[in-house]
């Protein structure tokens, strides 16, 4: 079996619902969503207008689910969707959309545009129009268990190193632990100190926690590419492991879309609520902070600013915790313009960072200019964030632009300054 246009359209027909119909019926082509999209603001190319990226979905909606559209299609007044068009749109739906959801926030008629992009990607994926890099990533996640091809032995190696560095035991497959911790491949490869930081914090709070050898990977390429069937398979691994261990909470790591995949999409993919709670690491830390369990010995002296990862803040709803935690540990925090839910994307969300085509990469760097401006306006040279993907994208961009700016993970920063 293989991808086909017909399968794509069929999936779109499944995906279209009352909100989609309402949104398309409300659009007045005011173009304000363009101003919210970093791919438009940084390039000035009108084809990056968010609502325009949804044209294929709109066509299917109109032709399949409206009486006038059906009649028009029958009379040959509107053309059916073609593979060529979808191929053209692939760039708009994947390369130039990070599903950051900023457009959904500004639309004057209230259209949730990113809600529809997510649906359109379903059709794009099974009609074979997802970028090949994303397809490869998805394949690795399904076959190997991780988008970056990280296997359990590699994780074990990280565990051992962090145990040595912290002098603390990192539990694995502990039946009845309170919290099961997930990691993202990026953390395993690029930021292993995150695991050590967690071990320290759990040790100080006396929390019984565990990793699972069956489900270490939190990221979900199925969500990014827009294939729910695959996303479900990936989520199911975590659900099986967590429910098998009988944990109360599953800790989503510093990774944007992982939180989206598990916290908000997971139960819908599985078709049932979970028997455990999905918590983002910052939510947990903030809970402890409020309970007085998180005391810092000193503060980070360098002024910092905060980059809010879209999927955790704007789309995930972890709105206040990051700033409250940051203010606890730094002596000077200078918010960016458009902070919190209004923040601009790093340019690499929604699977975009996995696309390594030269055009897509150049576009990503161009889109990063908005973040660059935001950082420069604060006048600081240290940026804190809490998404491994954002970190990679931002660091790449720092290199690209030759910026001498440091980037820190919030959890690690906290761990470093905790009371002994």
């Amino acid at each position, binding site marked *: 079996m293989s991808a086909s246009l017909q399968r794509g359209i069929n999936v779109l027909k499944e995906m279209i619902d*009352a909100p989609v119909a309402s*949104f398309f019926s409300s659009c007045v*082509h005011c*173009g304000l969503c363009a101003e919210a999209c970093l791919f438009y603001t940084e390039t000035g190319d009108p084809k990056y207008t968010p*609502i325009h990226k949804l044209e294929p979905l709109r066509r299917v909606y109109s032709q399949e689910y409206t009486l006038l559209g059906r009649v028009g299609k029958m009379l040959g007044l509107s053309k059916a969707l073609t593979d060529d068009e979808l191929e053209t749109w692939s760039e708009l739906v994947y390369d130039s959309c990070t599903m950051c959801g900023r457009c*959904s926030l500004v639309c004057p008629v*209230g259209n*949730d545009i990113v809600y529809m992009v997510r649906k359109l990607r379903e059709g794009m994926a099974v009609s074979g129009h997802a970028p090949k890099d994303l397809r490869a990533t998805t394949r690795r996640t399904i076959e190997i268990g991780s988008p970056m091809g990280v296997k359990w032995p590699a994780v074990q190696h990280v565990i051992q190193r962090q145990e040595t560095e912290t002098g603390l035991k990192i539990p694995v497959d502990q039946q009845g632990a309170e919290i099961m911790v997930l990691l993202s491949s990026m953390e395993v490869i690029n930021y292993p100190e995150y695991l050590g930081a967690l071990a320290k914090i759990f040790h100080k709070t006396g929390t019984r926690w565990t990793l699972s050898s069956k489900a270490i990977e939190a990221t979900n390429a199925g969500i990014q590419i827009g294939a729910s069937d695959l996303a479900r398979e990936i989520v199911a691994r975590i659900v099986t492991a967590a429910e098998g261990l009988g944990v109360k909470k599953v800790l989503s790591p510093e990774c944007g879309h992982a939180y989206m995949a598990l916290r908000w999409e997971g139960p*819908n993919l599985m078709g049932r609520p979970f028997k455990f709670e999905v918590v983002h690491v910052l939510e947990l830390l903030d809970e402890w902070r409020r309970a007085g369990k998180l005391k810092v010995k000193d503060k980070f002296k360098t002024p910092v600013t905060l980059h809010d990862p879209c999927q955790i803040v704007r789309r995930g*709803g972890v709105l206040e915790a990051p700033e409250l935690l940051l203010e606890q540990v730094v002596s000077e925090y200078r918010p960016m313009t458009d902070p919190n839910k209004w923040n601009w994307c790093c340019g690499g969300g929604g699977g975009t960072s996995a696309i390594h085509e030269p055009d897509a990469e150049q576009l990503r760097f161009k889109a990063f200019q908005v973040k660059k401006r935001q950082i420069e306006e604060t006048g600081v040279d240290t940026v804190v964030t809490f998404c491994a993907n954002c970190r990679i994208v931002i660091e790449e961009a720092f290199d690209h632009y030759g910026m001498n700016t440091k980037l820190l993970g919030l959890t690690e920063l906290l761990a470093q300054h905790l009371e002994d």
Partner: protein
Amino acid sequence: MNAMQFLAWVRGPGLDISVGILLLGVIWRLLEIYTLGRKPDLAPARRRAGASGWHTLYRRSLPAPGGLSRSPISYVGGYTFHIGLAIVVFLFAPHILLASSLVGLSWPGLPSPVIDGVTVITLAAMLVMLFDRINKPVKRYLSTFEDYFTWALTFLPVLTGYLAVKHLLLPYATMLAVHILCVELLLIALPFTKLFHAITVFGSRWYNGQINGRRGVPV
């Protein structure tokens, strides 16, 4: 057909037909759109969605932070012509009379000179919006025939209404008839074009507010 026959037709059968089509279209389209249904969200809500939908209904009436300076014409023009239209449509004495004869409700209106002024401002704002649509790359790129067509359908009733009241161009009776005819065309087109946003805007904002409200994000 002379002016009075024309006027009698638009006030009689014309109004009947257009209001009929409007009603037919609105009910049809509302059912068409909102019976598509949606799956229940099985993810446990961070916070009960509660009145999030209603909040968003209100919140989206205000410009997004920074939006006003980034798209001043869209916002200022948009506000001006929407508010202007509302004032002219709902606070001009003869219109109130029409409403009271159709639905039995009446409310105080504004003096004619005020309505005149608002009408001129509304027309100007609509012209600016048209100019902006042609001038601004994004808007021009997005625009289809429908965008210009619906603009004309909205502009003409205001223009002809003004000309009728001011006795310009055509004799009053003829212009009044043309005005009513233009309004009738607007009513007929409303359910089947983007003008339907006048109704679905509430549903769309509500959905957006509700979807994101469960996640704890006030949109």
